[in-house]
């Protein structure tokens, strides 16, 4: 190829000038550049940036607010739950069968002994209806713990003391203290009002004999 290059160059002047002119490389004319103001662009960019930052800040703030609200609501829920549980506990304590029975007995209510059943299909009364009585009440309270011997002086002293004119009271006392089954209760009731204790427990030993 290098041998053909001078020959090619020698042939060039023979080519038409116009073609030569056409074939010459020229630099593409510079495009005239209009200088536009950078302000709008900067404005847009800064607006986007500021908007983004402010939006993010607002979003973050609202998230924090929601978080604070959630925490305080959670605390409120905990307090309310605790209150509900406490009230439930009080309710359960009030519903304790022992509490109900004590109140009922204080109102004068007694347990039925043998109620009758009314059959609604046939209209028949099953069983013999019997009125409830207070003769054999359910003893609701545990007996007081027995006193230690040192605090429990022999009861016979009170039996000996009254003169013969107070025969009635003396026989009552004897009856109380010979009733071996109820010795404990009398020991307990002795500390309280004497007459009161006597009447309360009198029905029980007679029911047992």
């Amino acid at each position, binding site marked *: 190829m290098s041998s053909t290059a001078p020959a090619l160059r020698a042939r060039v002047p023979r080519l038409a000038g116009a073609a030569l002119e056409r074939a010459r490389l020229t630099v593409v004319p510079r495009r005239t550049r209009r200088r536009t103001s950078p302000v709008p662009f900067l404005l847009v960019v800064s607006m986007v940036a500021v908007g983004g930052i402010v939006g993010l800040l607002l979003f973050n703030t609202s998230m924090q607010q929601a978080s604070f609200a959630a925490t305080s609501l959670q605390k409120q829920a905990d*307090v309310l739950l605790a209150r509900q549980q406490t009230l439930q506990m009080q309710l359960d*304590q009030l519903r*304790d069968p022992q509490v109900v029975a004590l109140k009922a007995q204080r109102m004068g209510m007694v347990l039925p002994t043998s109620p009758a059943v009314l059959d609604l299909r046939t209209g028949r009364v*099953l069983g013999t209806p019997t009125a409830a009585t207070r003769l054999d009440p*359910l003893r609701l309270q545990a007996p007081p713990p027995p006193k230690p011997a040192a605090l429990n002086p022999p009861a016979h002293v009170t039996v000996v003391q009254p003169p013969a004119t107070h025969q009635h009271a003396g026989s009552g006392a004897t009856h109380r203290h010979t009733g071996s*089954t109820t010795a*404990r209760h009398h020991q307990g009731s002795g500390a309280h009002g004497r007459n009161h204790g006597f009447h309360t427990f009198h029905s029980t030993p007679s029911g047992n004999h």
Partner: protein
Amino acid sequence: MVPTSPRGHGPSGRPPAPRNRRPGTTARTRRRRRAARGAVQLRLRTGFVFIAVVLSFFGARLVQLQGVSPEKYATLAASEGGTVTVELPADRGRILDRDGKPLADSVDGRMVVADPSMTRSKAHQLARFLSRHLHVDYFQTLSALQKKNSRFAYIARRVPASLALDVVDQARAAGFKGLDTRDDPVRSYPDHDVAANLVGFLGTDGPLAGLELAFNHQLAGTAGSETYEVGAGNRIPLGRSTIVPAHNGTDLHTTIDEDLQWYTQRILRQTVLGARGESGFAVVMDSHTGEILSLADYPTYDATNPQASPKKDRNSLAMTSPYEPGSVEKVLTLSSLIDAGQVTDRTRLVVPGQLQSGDRVIHDWFPHGTLKMTLAGVIAQSSNIGTAKASRHFKPGQLRHYLTRFGLGQRTDIGVAGETPGLLPSSAAWDGMTQDRVAFGQSVSVNGVQMAAAVNTIANGGVRVSPSLIQGSATNNLGEPIGTDHATTRRVVSANAAHQMTDMMERVVNPDAGTAPGAQVPGYVVAGKTGTAQRVGPKCACYNGQFTVSFAGFAPADHPRFTVYVVVQNPRAGGGGGSVAGPAFSKIMGFALRRYGVPPTGAKPSEIPTTW
């Protein structure tokens, strides 16, 4: 892109410039360029050196932190308080009765604590305030508030959370300083002593008795934890946090009927105290399902204050203390004998005044000459001699097989820890004398529920249904599934044998023929059996002159609904099964029938002859 030249283009007509020479570059600019290039090199080098210096500082610091003493810095970082880990306690499951009423409940609670160094100045006023609002002892509180050289004192433990927080807020508003609260869950037993022997109780660190202990794994659940970032003592709202959620405990549903349990306990206490007994228990069982509606023990204790009672009163004697059942066992012996086809309820027996058994002599509880009794009479009058004589019709090993089928000698596995299996003599030790004694309830020991379930077999038409204390299914600490879902049934004696036995047991409560007229329930037909057994003393391992009196029965006899078993140990006031346990049976059974609305069936009690 439009290619541009920094210097414009050359004049037209000139040949293109060679590659290595840029058009229009002068020597001056070339020189300046070279200088600039040198400046860039310098800048780069300077930059690299600067970066290397900085990185080498980082590297040195890294080696110092990680290589020299990493632990020290790790602890330093942790103590800086970047994150906090708190425990999320699991709620303890409740223990419920059959209607879902709580026998044991968990309540969010707090302990109230004080810093004595802050409370000392106003201790008197604060102690008065606290004793009024928290119901604590004034003097104890006062000394706690004045404690010297201390910055911590308990004021009250296990206070319901709302009360504790209210009181502390009020105290703060009133100007008292130095009070605070901390988590301290409350376990409440609203019914105090009702079913306390079964339910058990919680100590400071954990369960100490009863179902609370036996089912602790299920009830306790697993605590979770939460780790979060804090800044200046406050939680950072959007900081990192990890939560391992707590798994709350599972409720335990029992078959106990709270009201019936309460009533049974009151009647039992009245009965044991009336008989001056040592202890006692009562079982109420649903005849068909085997569910235990009530299992009462006396002595008992208040579950909210267990320390007030001696330790021996805090478990279930009915389940843990074996005893000889005595004559109630005759129900099992004679129904087995009927099932074996050897006798019927009308079989005529000649009952002598005493019966030789090996080198011993068997007596009856009442002295008598030779009597002509039917088998029904043997049950109605509770004759040991008649039972032992009849039981000699068993083939070898037959009675033991029957009693095993009735459930004797095996745990009931109702879920009470420490249950005794009782003692049924082994086949090797089973001779004629043993059989004579076992036939009327000696030389064999049982627990309360075991015996109730055995008698209930007759009520349930000869099919033994295993007793249950837990509704559904629950898993105890040993991993055993327990509850009504796992209840089993098995036929022990034929329906006919059970029916004949029921007829005979109806004669027991007959005022003329039987031993326990006091066990009648007005309006209903009752079938039952008394028991008065000699008691084996714990020290001498012999009969020590004490007795176990009992009554087991069911009603209505023609369509049994409940089986009730009452036992009183060592009634020092005298009396037997009929006079001590019989009336208690009557009251408990009457209450249960009324409570569940069981109408009288209108049937007439059996008139089967007891003598001939």
